[in-house]
Structure formats: structure tokens, C-alpha cells
């Protein structure tokens, strides 16, 4: 059976202000797949993730993104979310005064409304929340706190995956979810992501290091350098990057790079 095509990125170019960041990204994601998007700092990984989620501070100058048959770039961020796209933020935003549960209920019901489903009532919602909390072993007291306010780095990342567990996206993009997590938290978060995996959804894991991929095993690994995917492969590519760094994949500088890049830590 042919897998459903969820995302097609074709020749995507984007800039922030005057700086070219994406310079022709091509990427295809099908249902049931896990993709890892790797690359050195400043290569454009997070920019790609943010553009897919609808952040408007970047200007797309060329190319297209088709998400489940729709022109993704024409959709507002909330429409993308309602269509099943989810971005786990690298830096989750603190929202003082807005209760975590209230926020999540508003989000879930907005998505359900979009799908033509009834709002979940308080009882069903709380049951769902309780169940999904366990998936990421998150402290329930965080639910009644304002969104991310005063959360530790690890708690914020767990909260992202918890939101993902409740909202059940079709395409989840995890932007550096591993940064700031200790090894135990990493394992828990990864286990949560793995348990949310279904044949009809897909995950794109954006990461700098191979470490996370020990726990979330990718079907495909892509290396983004200077705003372009320069190499794709299977999970072994990640191991190779771990050993050799990114240098061997980088072209000679063309004067466009903002900062000199360094290789991975282990050589």
C-alpha cells in the first residue's frame, strides 16, 4: 500500500531581512515516517521548522510547500495547526496569567471545531489530559500553572510533547527538543514521541546531535548546510555525522556564511 504523502517541500528559498537562510530546500515526508533534520548551527534547521509552522518573520522568495494537498504557505499558523501540523518549539514561550489547562483546552477545541467535532467537555478533557500526562511523566501541578512560566528548561520541553500528545498532530516537527534535557528526561520525552507514532502520522526531528536519535530512530536523516539539504540517508548517516562532524559535507565557503562553522564534538 502506498503511504500518504504528507509534506512536499520544493526548492524553498527564504530570507530573514537581507540574509538568505534557506537556499533551495527539498524534502518529502510520508505518513508513518520519522525524519531527522541535522546540521550545524545556523544552517537553517530552525528557520525551516518555523516557516513550516507559519512564522511570518521570514520571507519565502521561491519554492513551494504542499501539505496534504494544500499550499501550506497560504495558511495562517492556526489553520496549519488545525490541519494537523505541530511544532514543538526550541524555546517554548512563557505566557503569564494564562493557565496551562485552559490554554490547552482552547487549543484542542479550536482544532476539534475545525474538524467539525464537538467541544470536549471538562470531564472528558481532564480524563484525556490525565492519560497523556503519564506519557511524558509530567508533574500534574504544572497544569494549573501559567503556560511555561517558571518552568525549568526540561519542564518546558516536556510540556511541548505533552501538548503534542493531547493535540495528536499528523505532522509533528520537534525543533531541538533534546537541547536542555538531561539523559533521563530525554529518554522519557523520546518514549512519549515513540508511543505517539502511528501509521498515519509523521515526525520530523530537528537536532544538532545524534544523541536523541538513539531513542527516536529515524527512517531518514537529512543534513542541512547553508540552507540546503546536502545529503540524505538512513540512520547510519547520523552515526557517521557523530564520528566525522559536518566539515566533510560542507562546500568551500562562498562568502555567504554568517559565521564559521565548527564540526561535531567527537572526531
Amino acid at each position, binding site marked *: 500500500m502506498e503511504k500518504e504523502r504528507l509534506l512536499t517541500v520544493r526548492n524553498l528559498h527564504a530570507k530573514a531581512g537581507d540574509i538568505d537562510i534557506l537556499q533551495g530546500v527539498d524534502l518529502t515526508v510520508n505518513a508513518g515516517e520519522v525524519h531527522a533534520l541535522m546540521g550545524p548551527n545556523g544552517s537553517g534547521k530552525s528557520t525551516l521548522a518555523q516557516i513550516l*509552522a*507559519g*512564522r*511570518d518573520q521570514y520571507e519565502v522568495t521561491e519554492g513551494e510547500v504542499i501539505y496534504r494537498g494544500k499550499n501550506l504557505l497560504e495558511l*495562517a*499558523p*492556526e489553520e*496549519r*495547526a*488545525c490541519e494537523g501540523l*505541530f*511544532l514543538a*518549539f526550541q524555546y*517554548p*514561550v*512563557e*505566557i*503569564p*496569567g*494564562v493557565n496551562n489547562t485552559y*490554554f*490547552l*483546552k*482552547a*487549543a*484542542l*477545541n*479550536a*482544532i476539534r471545531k*475545525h474538524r467539525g467535532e464537538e*467541544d470536549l467537555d471538562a470531564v472528558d478533557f481532564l480524563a484525556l489530559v490525565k492519560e497523556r500526562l503519564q506519557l511524558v511523566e509530567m508533574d500534574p501541578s504544572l497544569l494549573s500553572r*501559567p503556560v511555561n512560566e517558571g518552568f525549568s528548561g526540561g519542564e518546558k520541553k516536556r510540556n511541548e510533547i505533552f*501538548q503534542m500528545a493531547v*493535540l495528536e498532530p499528523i505532522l509533528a516537527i520537534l525543533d531541538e527538543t533534546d537541547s536542555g534535557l538531561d539523559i533521563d528526561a530525554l529518554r522519557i520525552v523520546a518514549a512519549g514521541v515513540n508511543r505517539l507514532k502511528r501509521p498515519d502520522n509523521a515526525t520530523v526531528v530537528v537536532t544538532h546531535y545524534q544523541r536523541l536519535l538513539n531513542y527516536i530512530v529515524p527512517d531518514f536523516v537529512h543534513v542541512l548546510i547553508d540552507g540546503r539539504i546536502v545529503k540524505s540517508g538512513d540512520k547510519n548517516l547520523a552515526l557517521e555525522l557523530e564520528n566525522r562532524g559536518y566539515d566533510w559535507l560542507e562546500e568551500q565557503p562562498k562568502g555567504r556564511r554568517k559565521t564559521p562553522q565548527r564540526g561535531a564534538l567527537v572526531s
Partner: protein
Amino acid sequence: MTPLAHDLNSYQAGFEWRERHGGGDDPVWLREMRGKAIAQFLDTGFPGTDEEEWRFTNLAPIAERSYRLPEFPTLEASTIRRIASLPVVAAAHCRLVFVNGYLIPELSSTSHLHPSVQLQNIASAALTSDSIVERELSQYAAVSKSSFTALNTAFLHDGAYVRVVPSQAVDEPIYLIYVTVPAADPVMIFPRNLILIGENSTAKLVEVYLSLADGIYWNNAVSETVIGEGARLEHIKYQLEAESAFHISTQQSHIGRDAVYSSTSIAMGSRLARNNLNAILAGMGGECTLNGLYLIAGNQRLDNHTLIEHTVPECASHELYKGILNGHSHAVFNGRVRVRPGAQKTDAKQTNKNLLLSNDALVNTQPQLEIYADDVKCTHGATIGQLDEEAVFYLRSRGIDLEAASGLLTYGFASDVIDRVSVEPLRNLFNDALRERLPQGLPD
């Protein structure tokens, strides 16, 4: 007929009329106090914008109008029912309700009153020659320093007297509710409160100012609050005046040794309002928290002037005022923290944050630190801005549309202050009022 007060002479005439009609029966000390106050007011008149304290707030709309002194209101049964069913009145189990400045016993309720609390109207307390009222009234809010305190004192005929004896924990909040029933002629009302919290006692006190309908009137209120040694008071003020009304309020608080005073001022009403909030940390180890939220729109003008005086060492003060402005509204925040010579180890923090929802709204924010001691920690910060774009994007990325995301963030901005109020029914009322006034609406 009561005289009109269109210039200073008319205040003099109003004063004389009042002294002839009822005021003459009051104790001599009270009459003398009023006499000095009216002389003071006539001497100084209304302050102008050339005075530093009034730079951003032009009082002309108040000063150029005439006001009548209201007579005791004869309320129809339906009006009584309407007032009784106001959410804030219904939520207040223990309350004095004043209408147009007069205590209305049938609307008041003291059945839940803690036995250690004396809750009376000043008129009765003064008339029964309460020696404490005689001693304490007008000892804290200085007539010589403020025209509005002078005017309030000159027309001091009624208000609330709250006294908690030492070493009592009073859980039930005490409400002082000032309702105005506007008439065709604008009235001026002078609520006056004297609040005495005895040593090591705790209490919660709520002042409410609201109107039954829109109309022009002027409330000029003064509250004097004394928090005894080791006592704790949570003092909440809810200003929900009519949109054409004027509101001037002076809250003067005297905080004793190791006492904890926490004030929350929620202001949503009136066309022109000024809050003077002065807290004096008078004993070592005292703590003062001033929180405020103002939510204004249209052509509303709202001015918060706060003063925290650290007169002795080792006191702490925290201040957080937040404002949400829409339309052509204009807010002023002036936060003065004065650290007197010798007030070492003072720890003072002040924050004022403003959210502008329209291009035409205006804020003047001004922290003023006057520090005359060298071993102190004083910080202040002020922000004026729009909604945080990152936060808007975060909410939208979860499926919440732009409108609802804006509403949610605005709500969150405000509930940050509301959530600090410990009285749950009040928090709910504030949140309801907030929701009603949010321009963007909220998710269910």
C-alpha cells in the same frame, strides 16, 4: 434646595448649608476639623497642571462643573433589590452599603461579622463619641497636603469605621460598598473610611465604588488605614464608577512594625480618575505590596500616583501596576519610593507594565526613586508595548486564532494581577469584568 458648587465660593456655601442641615449636631471636634479643612481648601483650591503632581492630569473637567450635595436617598423597593442583587454586593456577606454617601442599613449586613470587629458608619461612631475615632480620624491623611483630602474632610459626614481589636484572625472579608444613584444634577460625594487593624490581627478589606446607572457625579474618597504591629491587612479597592463619573481617591496607609500590608487596586470605571495611594512603612520589618490593574478605553483618563515611604530600616516594598489601554484612553502612573535617611536595608521593587491595544492610547509612566540611605536595594522598571508577537505566534501555532490569541494574552496580562487577590469570589468578579471588557473575546 442645596446650593450648586460651580466655583470655590459655592463650596463655601455648600459647607455652610451642610453645617446648618445636620452637621451642627455633630461633636465639636468634628465640626472644628471640618472648619479647618474648608479653610484649607478655599485657600489652595484645585491644583493645576503646573504642579508637578498634576502635570499629566488636567482637573478642569471636575473643577469647572457644579455639583449638588446629595440628600439622604429615598430608595424604592426595586432600587434596593437592584443594588442587593449586584454581583459584588451579593458576594459580600459582611458589608456596609452606602448610597450617595449615606449608609443604607437595609442593604448592609453584619450578621457574618467577626465578634472582634467593630464595623459602623462614622456618623454613628462619631456621634456616640467614640474616643478612638476622635483620636485617629484625620491623623494620617493630611489636610494640608492635598486639596482633595481637605475637601473630603470639610464635607466629612459619613463613611465607614472598621476596627479590629488586637490578636484576631478575621477571615471574612469586610466590604465597604459605595453606590451612586446618579440624578439629573451632578452630585458630589465624600466617602470617608477609617480602618484600624489591631496588633497581630489579620483582616481583609474591600472598598467598592460603583454606580447604578451612567451619569455625571463626583466621588472624592479618603481612606485612612492603620495596620498595627505584626498585623496583616489585604486591602482591595474596586473602582467601577459610571463612565461619565469623576473619581478621586486617597488611600493613606500607616504600616507598623513587622506588619504586612497588601493593596490591590482594580480600576475600570469613570471618565476621569485619580488614585493617590500613600503607604508609610513606619516600623522596622514592615512589608508593603501595592498591586494595581487599570483597564480603560474610549476617552477614559486614569491616573495612579503611589508613594511608598520607607522611614525606618529593614522594610520591604513590592509594587506591580499593570494597565491595558484601548481607544483614546490615557493613563498616568507615577510611582514614588522614598527611602528616608537611616532607612537602611530597604528592599524596594517597582514595576509598571502597560499594554496598548490601540494606536491612540497614551501612557505616561514615571518611576521616582528618592533614596537618602546608602545600604538599600531599589529597582524599578516600566514597559509600554503591544502584545508579544512570539506569544501570539505560539498560541496560533496550537490552533488558536489571532483574535482569540490576542484576547487570551490580554486576559493573561491582567489576570497576573487579579490572581494575587486572595478572595476567590472577588477574583471571579474581576475576571468576569475583565472578560466583558476585553475587545477581542476569549475562547470558551
